[in-house]
Each structure stands twice: as C-alpha cells, then as structure tokens.
C-alpha cells in the first residue's frame, strides 16, 4: 500500500511538474500555477510517506497556501493575457536540452558510483514532530532567529519595492 501510494504520488509529481514547464494545451500562467499547486500537494504526500509529517504540513501551508496565492495575485495584478505563441528560439531550446542532458549525466554517474548501502527501510523516528521542535529550539536556535530577521528584511524590501515612486 505504501509503495503503491509512493509511486502514485511520484508519477503525479513528475507529470504535474512537466505540465508546469511545458503545457501543450494552454500558455496561460494561471494554468501553470495550478499545476504547481498539484505538484506541491503530491510532494507533501511523498513527505508523509517518508514520515516527515510536520514538513508535509508546512509544505501545504507555506507553499500551497502562501506562495501560490502570491503567484496568483501577481498574475492577476499584471493582467497577463493569454500569452501569444511566440517562436521558442532554437538556440534556447538547444542550450536547455544540452544542459539538461549534461546534468542528468552527472546525476547518472553519481547514482552509479554512490554505494547507497542504507536502502533497507529503517524504523520510523517515533513522533517526528516533537524531536524536530526540540532540535530546532536547542541546536538550531540561532539560525531560527536569523531566519526571522531575514523574513523581516524580505517584508521591508517587498514594501519598499512596491512603492510607486522608486
């Protein structure tokens, strides 16, 4: 059952990720954003199967909740019309495919040479959220606080950039 669900979510993730990037039916950015939601939701499903329950919840709340809403807001704010079908330049396509092939060669080589001896399923960390919180507020307290400052800076920067007379 677990395995079946994993392969289902994996296939859904890859399919929807592909539809975000190249959608043969629609050039509308909103369609891409919707498929991005699906990708992120199925990734959250994989996180649950990997016993990362807290991260699955965060993934749904932060990505599907906040980030996608931000994307949709901006798409509707910019009033982008159905993008006219421009000729995709062959140069861009060729360089893109070359880099994808090169990086997948690197990945393949890494997969070959890596001895992933740890493939045996291990027992789940019992109740992963509590140890995660304990770790976050003891060993990683300083990064946690720094991230809060980063969020503040991002907020100020966004407000400053959105002012009309910059």
């Amino acid at each position: 059952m677990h395995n079946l669900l994993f392969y289902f979510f994996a296939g859904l993730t890859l399919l929807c990720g592909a539809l975000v990037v190249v959608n043969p039916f629609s050039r509308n950015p909103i369609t891409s954003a919707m498929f991005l939601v699906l990708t992120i939701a199925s990734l959250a499903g994989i996180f649950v199967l990997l016993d990362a329950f807290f991260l699955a919840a965060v993934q749904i709340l932060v990505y599907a909740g906040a980030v996608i809403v931000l994307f949709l807001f901006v798409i509707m704010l910019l009033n982008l019309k159905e993008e006219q079908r421009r000729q995709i330049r062959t140069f861009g396509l060729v360089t893109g495919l070359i880099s994808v092939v090169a990086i997948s060669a690197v990945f393949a080589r890494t997969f070959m040479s890596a001895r992933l001896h740890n493939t045996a399923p291990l027992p789940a960390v019992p109740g992963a959220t509590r140890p995660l919180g304990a770790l976050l507020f003891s060993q990683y307290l300083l990064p946690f606080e720094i991230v809060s400052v980063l969020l503040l800076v991002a907020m100020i920067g966004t407000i400053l950039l959105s002012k009309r007379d910059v």
Partner: protein
Amino acid sequence: MTVPLEHVLFVSAGLFLLGLLGVIVRRNLLIIYMSLELMLNAGNLALVAFSRFNNDLNGQILVFFIITVAAAEVAVGLALIVALYRKRHTAHVEDLTAMKL
C-alpha cells in the same frame, strides 16, 4: 516504506531537471520563477529522503529553513517582477534587453 532510496532520488532528480529545463527554455518571468520553485522542491525531496533513510532529523531542519527562505525569496522576487512590469509593461525576458551590450 519499502521503496528504495534510489527511486525517491530519481523522482527528485527528474523534478530538478524539469525545473532546469523550464528556467532555460521558457521566456515568461513568472513561469521561470515557478520552475525555480520546482528545483527548490526537488532539493527538499532529496533532503527529506536522506533524512528518513539515515534516521537523522538534521535534514528535515534544513528543509524547514529552505522553505522559509524560499518564501522570502518569492515575496521579494515577485515584488521585483511587479516593479519591472510597471516600468516596462512586459513580463517577457526577451523584451528586457537594457543590459545587453
């Protein structure tokens, strides 16, 4: 969970490559941004998988920070795109050639 680690990593690599292809091939700034999110998510998936298969929670902490930083990055980036659109009335990278020699 009896899925081998390789399969999870394979999904992660595939998602990363899709995102890379989108960043290079697509010409719409917003879609380039969404592809960047795909790449970040692929990294997160690999980290969660390693964390699970090594029974080590540090990987999940890293993913937590990545998600936070990605949210901040999206906010600032989209504000930049909106500001750019106000000045140039386009969200298409081919029309943004002010820095071209």
